[in-house]
Every structure is written in C-alpha cells, then in structure tokens.
C-alpha cells in the first residue's frame, strides 16, 4: 500500500491558480466522493484551504499510476487543462508524503509560520473523508499521527505564540493589562484600516462598547457600521477618553491631537483604572509625554511593530524544535508502516509452523490415543507454546527492521528458507484450520 500526495500550495502556485483549484468553495465531501468513485485508490482525503489544495490517497497500485489519476481528476473536476497547473503541482510518496502532512499540521508549511487554524482544517478534511467512508487503515493512521504532531508542536514549542500582526499585538497587550476584555469600553479616534481591524478583534473578545469619532463624521458612521459600534461627534473626544479603557488613534493629523492635559483631565475623573492608548497614526496622534501619567500605557505603531518582529523572531527560533518533533513522529510512522509490510511474511511463517505442528500431531495420533483426554490436551498445548516461543523473536525482528531494503532482503530470505511461497509438499494437513484469509491478505 502506498501513500501518494499531489497538490498545490502557496509555495508552488500563485493565488489565482490556487483559487481555480480550490475545493473548499464547493462541497469538499462531494469532491472526495467523486475522487473515490473514479480512482483506483482505496482511501482518499482532500485538504483544501485558501493556501493549499492537496489530495492524499492510499493505493495498492503503482504510485505513478495513482499520480496520473489524480492529475486527470484535478483537470476534470476543475475543468482546467492539465498544462495550466502541472508546472505548479508538487507530489510526494509514502514517507515524504507523510512528512509533508506532518509539517502542514504543525503549521510549519503555513504562510505565517505557526498559525493555529491549519490543524483544525486538517482535522476537518479528515472528518469529511472519514464520514463518507473514504478513509482506511493507512490514511487513518497517517492523519491521526499528523494530529499528534500538531498537538505536540503546539504544547511543546512556542511556534504559535505571540501576535504576529500589529492589530493582534495590540489586543494581546490589552489582555495583559485588563485580563478578560468583556465589558471594557473602546474609543476609536480616526477611521483607518488597522484601527478597524483592531476594533474588530477587540469586539470578538467581548468588549462592551466601541465608540468611534472622526473629523469627518461620515467616516465615523461607516466604521461604526462596520465594527458594530456607534459614532460620536469629534468635539466630545476628551469626555469619551474619560469613559474609555482602550483608546485607538489613527488620524491623518500632522500634529498631536491628544495632549497630556487632555489625558490628565480624563484620568483625573477615573481614579486608578488603567488606560491603554494605541497610537497607530504616523505622525503620532498622542503626545509621547502622556505615557508619564501613572495609569496610562501608551504604545505607538513602532512599539507594536517591534513586538511583532520579536514574536516572529521567537517563532523562527522554535522552527528547529518543531521540525525535530516532526522528524521524531515521522520515524515512528515509518516504523509502523514497515512493521505492517512484514505482516504477510509473518502470517505465512506462522501458518507454515502451525501446519507442521498439526501434521506431526496427526502422525502421532494413534500412539497418543491411549492417553487420557487431559494429557492429550496438554500435548496439544505444549506444542502450540513451543511454536509460539520459537516464532516470537523472529516476528519482532522482522517488524523492527530499520529500513525497506533490509526488510526486503530478510523477507526474501525467510520466504526461501521456509519455502513460504510454495505449496507444502508432504504436509497433507487436511483438517488444519486455515488462517482467516482477510488477515493473510493484509499488506
């Protein structure tokens, strides 16, 4: 059984091509079913996010044939000539495919390294396929190992820690000052893209109230509608500062619009509750000396950028640790795969030994017939135990061989030594119970 991966990602394909190969805008479940219906692969999973479209299949056929089928499927399903996307496609087999999936699940292959959504998306992709009975032993194991990798990387490294955008950095700071943001009041001065984003993040953390004021009232109204806040006249700004816990400023003013006197007047009324001012404007909107006021925390856009840079650097420093986890889990996965490959040989070997045992017992049947039933049962039991003990060590060894080549050599040797491929010559074990055929057929 081979694991085959074929797909495009932000590393190999431009966004317009990724859009045309996207499954997630249509029904991913239907895509998996369509693939399963026409391909020779026994198992399939489609992983589709805005940064990648990847198809994982498990097939008993030759990987080259499976790849050919996948290309044809992509071309037909998206009605796109293969020449268009073929140069941007990447493909991996077996351990390399698992390695890629593990890195994806860990967030190592993401546009922003360590971003947390991807693990959930991988889980969803698997659930969709599993729910339609399109997965089997190989993909089940591969994907569950990938979830394990994602979880380990998340808990054992700091790969996903620290905000990596200005707006998230501002929200993270607010949370460090206020704890939970539920019930806090926000004032937005001047409508801009980053202030809108920050306000939206704050809203998703449950702030009670977002007030927006702008020199141009229409801008304030528009932003208020966008983030679910309310607009307020420009002239009431100072009073609004007194009521706010978090102030975001982003006007195009050339001179500071919030002076130390403004903030002192506002904080005088509010006693000692902290006031967090985020000045995203360039040039700055808030007089820097405002930060000298005891309960005021003032951050400008450079301060936030610095935090982002530090966090990115910290994430980069964690990449090696995350890759090490991936490598560790991959070794475990390939060992599992190899042990599965040894299964047919092991089964055949056991069957051969058991056949011999039964034949010999039959041969002795007449001589043993004089024994009481318990003693006969004992003989049966002892011979079975001897066979089991003899085979225990070779079985373990076959399953634990370090690489595929060695495994092939050993399998071949065992097959020859015990003539496993051939029909046994003198063992007319007519009443020997055959092994369950489904187990014997296991890859």
């Amino acid at each position: 059984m081979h694991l085959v991966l074929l797909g495009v990602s932000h590393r190999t394909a431009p966004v317009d091509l990724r859009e045309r190969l996207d499954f997630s805008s249509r029904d991913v479940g239907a895509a998996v079913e369509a693939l399963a219906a026409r391909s020779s692969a026994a198992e399939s999973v489609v992983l589709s996010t805005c940064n990648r479209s990847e198809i994982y299949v498990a097939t008993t056929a030759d990987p080259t044939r499976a790849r050919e089928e996948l290309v044809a499927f992509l071309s037909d399903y998206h009605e796109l000539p293969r020449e268009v996307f073929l140069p941007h496609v990447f493909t991996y087999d077996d351990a390399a495919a698992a390695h890629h999936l593990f890195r994806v699940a860990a967030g190592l292959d993401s546009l922003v390294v360590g971003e947390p959504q991807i693990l959930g998306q991988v889980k969803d992709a698997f659930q969709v396929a599993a729910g339609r009975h399109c997965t089997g032993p190989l993909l089940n194991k591969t994907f569950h190992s990938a979830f394990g990798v994602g979880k380990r990387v998340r808990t054992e490294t700091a790969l996903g820690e620290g905000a990596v955008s200005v707006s998230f950095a501002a929200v993270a700071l607010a949370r460090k000052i206020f704890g939970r943001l539920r019930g806090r009041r926000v004032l937005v001065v001047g409508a801009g893209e980053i202030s809108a984003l920050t306000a939206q993040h704050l809203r998703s953390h449950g702030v009670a109230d977002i007030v927006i004021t702008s020199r141009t009232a229409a801008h304030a109204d528009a932003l208020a509608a966008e983030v679910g806040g309310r607009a307020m006249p420009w002239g009431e700004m100072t009073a609004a500062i007194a009521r706010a816990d978090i102030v975001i400023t982003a006007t195009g003013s050339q001179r500071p619009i919030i002076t130390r006197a403004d903030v002192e007047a506002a904080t005088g009324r509010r006693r000692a509750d902290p006031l967090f001012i985020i000045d995203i404007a360039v040039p700055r909107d808030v007089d820097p000396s405002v930060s000298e006021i005891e309960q005021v925390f003032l951050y400008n856009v450079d301060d936030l950028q610095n935090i982002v840079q530090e966090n990115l650097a910290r994430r980069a420093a964690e990449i090696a640790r995350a890759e090490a986890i991936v490598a560790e889990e991959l070794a475990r996965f390939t060992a599992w795969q190899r042990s599965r490959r040894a299964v047919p040989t092991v089964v055949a070997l056991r069957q051969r030994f058991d056949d011999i045992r039964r034949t010999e017992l039959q041969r002795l049947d007449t001589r043993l017939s004089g024994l009481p039933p318990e003693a006969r049962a004992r003989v049966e039991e002892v011979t079975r135990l001897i066979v089991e003990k003899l085979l225990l060590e070779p079985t373990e060894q076959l399953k634990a061989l370090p690489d595929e080549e060695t495994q092939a050599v050993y399998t071949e040797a065992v097959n020859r030594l015990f003539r496993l491929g051939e029909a046994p010559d003198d063992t007319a074990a007519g009443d020997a119970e055959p092994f369950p055929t489904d187990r014997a057929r296991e890859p």
Partner: protein
Amino acid sequence: MNVLPLILYAAAAVAYGVHFARRQPQAGRLATTLLIFAALAHTFVIGMQTMEVRHVPFANASSATSTFVWLLALSYLYLEITADERAMGVFIVPMLAGLQTIPAVSPGVERIDPLLDSPWFWVHVSSLLFAYASFALASVLGLTYVVQFKEIKKKHLGYFYTRLPSLQTLDVMNERAVAIGWLCLTVGVAVGAIWTGQARAVAPDDPNLQAMSLNDPKIFVAVLTWGVYSFAILARQTMGWSGRRAAWLSALGFAIVLLNFLPINYFVTTSHTF
C-alpha cells in the same frame, strides 16, 4: 515528622520553577499534584500532633511556623485552583519550603502554659496566622504586579510578560488577599485584647499579662500592621489606590509582618513567647 512535607514542598518548588521557566503544562500539573500531596502530608502531620498534644500545635515559634506554612499552602492552592493561574507558585512554594525547614530542623517542645489553655487563645493564634498567610500571598501578588507593570510601561516585554497573569488579575487577587487578611487580623487582635482582660482577672500577677500593652513591641507592630492594611483598603475604596500603590502597600505591610514574626519574636518581645 515535618520532614516529609518539607521534601514534598521542595519537590513542588522545583516543579513550579521548571513550569515557569519552560512553560510546560505537564510540569505545571506535576507541580500542583506535588503541592497537593505536600499539603495532605502536612495536614496529616498537624493532625497527628493535634491528637498528641490535644490542640493545634502552635504554642511555640517552630510549630507555629509549621502551621503557618500549612495555612499558606492551603490558601495558595485555593487561589491557584479558583483563579486557574499557576504562575504565582514559583514565588510562593519556595517560600513554603524555606519556612518548613524551621520545624523540620528544630521541632521545639509543645508545652503549654495552663493560662493559655483557653478557646480564646486558639482563635487568637489561628486567625493571626491565617492573616499573615494571606498577607504573604498579597505581597507576592503585589511584587509581581510591579514587575509586570514595569515591563508593560517600559515597552520591554520580556521574560515575565509572557509568564505572569494580567495586571487586572493580579490586582484583583491582591485586593482579595488583603481583605481576607485584614479581616483575620482584626479578629485576631480584638480577641487578643478581650482575652487579656479576662485573663488579668484570673491571674493578676502573671508577668506576661502585665506586659500586654501597646508598649510591647510585638503588640505595637501588630497594631501598626493593622493600620497599614486598613489604610490600604480605605485608600483603594476612596482614593482609587489600586494597582501599583496597592501593590507597594501590601509589600510594606508584609515586611512589617515579617519583622514581627522573626526578629521581634526572638529578641525583644516581652509579653509573647512567640
């Protein structure tokens, strides 16, 4: 007998340190588990001593320290579990281990003056010990608040920033700890005063009782402590002294408590044997 809790406290302290430095959730869970076992072992030890001498063992400085450590461990565990915040353990638990060495090394003789064998005495001592445990927690919370405040204010988001809870959480926990401590301190001092009056009627010539007045350094410092914490609570309510000021006040208060517990206890008190 006090050695087993000491070993467990020390092990928990190490685990809290590892958890704080490396931020591994497993280390954190191990730390809490060890601390729970330490507290259980300590409960057992104190229970056995109580059975043996027929009262909670705090009639000398060593056993009082042991009881104090036990109460502090329980209050810290309560705080950790209710606030779901493990970061403070790295400051508190080493303190537990350090203090627990006193009863572990020199157990002291649990002998009690018949004059002290009154329910008042037990209320007096246990509420004061509990007050001091709360103040210890409050001061640690206050100091970490100051560290965290400085990092955010200076825009230097370093080692502690990623590890400590939010300023708001620290401030609220500090407020709670001070309030509980103040309540217990008030009860402890008031009961002490009432009981002195009663005891004087029974044994007018006892020299210790003669010395029970504000002139005794121990009593004076206890009242001073009460004053500091009363001011902290009042200032928070009326003048908005929360955050950094409240944090410094709780640290100051506990410094005075320590002064009372250690040097004054051993050298200058006239009325109290500990």
